[in-house]
């Protein structure tokens, strides 16, 4: 098993490397993660400390990105905000993927009644307007950073379920699976050892694309006042704070807005790049260099 997989990796890398947009995306994503990790070192000020004598100060040497309505340093808030925004993305997508993998694997591997029940449930969830559901549930729960993450995750697992199930459906019939089953491997072993690793590629892509979507969802919720609450700064709620002063304090909306834009864009380019590079048919296409 190990041999061919390493070969696949090499092939993946060869294709991926050729996609310059995806490379850029990947580079930016790495920088962002580093920035988030180093926020306490990089931030010049306490992101929560108000300074009412210095309200809505434009960018200056002291405050590179200006200050907000109660005089907090926007740069520090954007830096700290990157941690929370990225955390929201990662955790919610993590939750969604876990649920999606478990349910998708069960449905795809077991088939029959299990499959029927799970897929009906997926249909049920897909029929709900997700944003309405988010609104209703977040209004109901105590809004905190954790509930926002959990609710975004719990309403976003359906896509992954479908992906994993489809992969399982096709992998289940593959020789190496049938072979291990015939030599008496337990179902769990077959699933975790043989099928799942081979089914992870599309999940990885879905996760890469889910993170920016979650960040955007959080900013939309912030606009309605249901996003992550203070004292945490997120790009979404900095942006929302800034919208009432959008004309006199452009720095309050432009910078977090740009941060969201760049982040979401990079994740998407990266995700698409990975997908293209993983898909053998597309890889062929890339290799041939058409167009």
């Amino acid at each position, binding site marked *: 098993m190990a041999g061919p997989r390493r070969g696949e990796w090499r092939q993946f890398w060869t294709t991926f490397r050729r996609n310059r947009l995806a490379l850029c995306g990947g580079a930016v994503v790495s920088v962002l993660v580093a920035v988030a990790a180093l926020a306490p070192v990089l931030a010049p000020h306490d992101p*929560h*400390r*108000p300074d*009412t*004598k210095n*309200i*809505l100060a434009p960018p200056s040497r002291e405050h590179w990105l200006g200050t907000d*309505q*109660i*005089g907090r340093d926007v740069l520090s808030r954007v830096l700290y905000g990157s941690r929370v925004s990225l955390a929201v993305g990662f955790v919610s997508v993590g939750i969604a993927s876990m649920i999606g993998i478990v349910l998708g694997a069960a449905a795809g591997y077991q088939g029959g009644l299990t499959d029927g029940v799970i897929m009906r449930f997926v249909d049920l969830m897909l029929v709900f307007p997700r944003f309405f559901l988010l609104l209703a549930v*977040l*209004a*109901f729960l*105590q*809004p*905190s950073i954790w509930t926002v993450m959990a609710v975004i995750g719990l309403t976003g697992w359906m896509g992954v379920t479908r992906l994993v199930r489809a992969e399982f459906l096709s992998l289940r019939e593959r020789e190496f699976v049938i072979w291990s089953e015939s030599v008496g491997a337990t179902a769990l072993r077959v699933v975790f050892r043989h099928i799942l690793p081979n089914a992870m590629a599309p999940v990885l892509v879905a996760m890469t694309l889910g993170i920016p979507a979650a960040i955007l969802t959080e900013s939309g919720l912030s606009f309605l*006042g*249901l996003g992550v*609450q*203070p*004292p945490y700064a997120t790009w979404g709620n900095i942006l929302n*704070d800034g*919208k*009432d*002063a*959008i*004309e*006199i304090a452009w720095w309050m909306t432009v910078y977090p807005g740009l941060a969201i834009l760049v982040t979401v864009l990079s994740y998407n380019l990266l995700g698409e790049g990975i997908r293209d590079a993983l898909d053998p048919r597309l890889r062929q296409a890339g290799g041939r260099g058409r167009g």
Partner: protein
Amino acid sequence: MGRLRGLRWLALGVLCLGLGACNVIEGEEQAELASDELPAHGDTFILATIGDITALIPNITSDAPSHEVGALIYDGLVQADRNLNYVPQLAESWTFSPDCLSLTFALRRDVVWHDGRPFTADDVVFTYQTMMNPKTPTAYRDSFSMISSVEAPDPHTVRVTYGKPFARAVSSWAMAILPKHLLETYAASGTLRESPQNRRPVGTGPYRFHEWRSGEKVVLLANRDYYDGPPYIGRVVYRVIPSQATIFLELKAKGVDQTALTALQYTRQTAYPAFHKAYRKYRYPSSTYTFFGFNLQDPRFADARVRRAFAHAINKQEIIDGVRQGLAREATGPIRPGTWAYTDQVRRYPYDLDRARQLLAEAGWKDRDGDGLVENVEGKPFAFTIQTNQGNEERKKIAEIIQQRLKDIGVKADIQVIEWASFISEYLKKRRFEAVVMGFGVGTDPDQYVIWHSSQMGPDQMNRLSFSNPEVDRLLEDGRASCHEAQRVTYYQRFQQVLAEEQPMIFLYFADALPVVASRVRGIQPAPAGISWNFTDWFVPEQLQRYTSG
């Protein structure tokens, strides 16, 4: 004669000791009336409201936009004037019996409903019965529950009898009077909400209902047969725009003639020549105070020294500057400054961190392990959560500032912002909170029995902080049962002094109302009651009119 428009029914009777004793009323006072600017009828006046209008029988709504619209369509027996004094409206005059128990209104004889039927005393009796009908979903029954009978000896006289003296007797009759001939069957069967008049109202007021598109706008037309003379502005449009940022941009693009500004917009976003040309800004003290309140059932906050320590640690001026750009006046108690019951002769708590630390230490809170936080004898650090409702940026920022200031005296505060409906029912009603940042709108009357009396601590009742003080209880009871102002003043002044001493909440500020009106409108007279009190006298000179008014 002026008419108070706006939140009339929420207002309770009060006197202001002349304009001089009242607050600063800032308006960019217009150079009054050039000679060619004669009052003219016509034009359309457009207001923006952030909340949707819910229904048009004001007696069963409790949201500000619906009341604002209703105030133009309906009249009450009395109304508040520019100085918040109560003056006749549908009533020509009224007399009190010497024991304050019987109130007799003489009604105007020239009033007709918008559908042409004459207005009579039966309508008043009907309105009272409707308010008392248990099937009527109203929030204002309390104002009428002290009444033992309402009679109409003749079509133009109404006699109201009270079981015991009630201080708010006159002001409660500012409530909209409803048409009996249209609503009788609905009110009796408890289906007032479903009556056609709830969407196409018929009143006696200066404006007739024209059109209502849900979530979009309400259009009113001048009532040409109004008994007080038809209002000048021919057409009034309320536009529902649910985003504050959008309303402001509409204002800049001249799509809106009147709206309320935020403090930041007032100070920073409207200070340029083109805006001054198109609009006039006004500023006067509003009737809402913002406070930082404690749950007095919490043993830590039951100790007055802790509350006083917090009062010293919080710099009210910093908060006013920080979240209101200075556009607010410091609150020393729950009575609106400038009204007759107000006194500033109360204990103050200047910003003084040392004094705050000292008070905390007296109460047993000291930094015992050198971590910068204060602990009690058992070594438990002082940590609690400040809650506030979501959707109010000011309160959120206040919480953030308080959090930082308390940190300076070694107290750790977390902030939780909770969606409004859950905040009320899950936290406030169940007393599941430690401290809150909230606001209260006070009426024109100082009666605050339901907020502060110790009998009002039930789950559905309003004494949410669980404040209990025998002296305050007595003062509130006496103040409520007297109809002599001179007597009431002494009760309410003492009441404020006790509250200042006790600090059950830290009274932060009364915010200034900051309306802005298109400059083509003339006749605006800023007064303690605000600017909308004489809306029917507003006009646009003919050469400045912008719209046809139908």
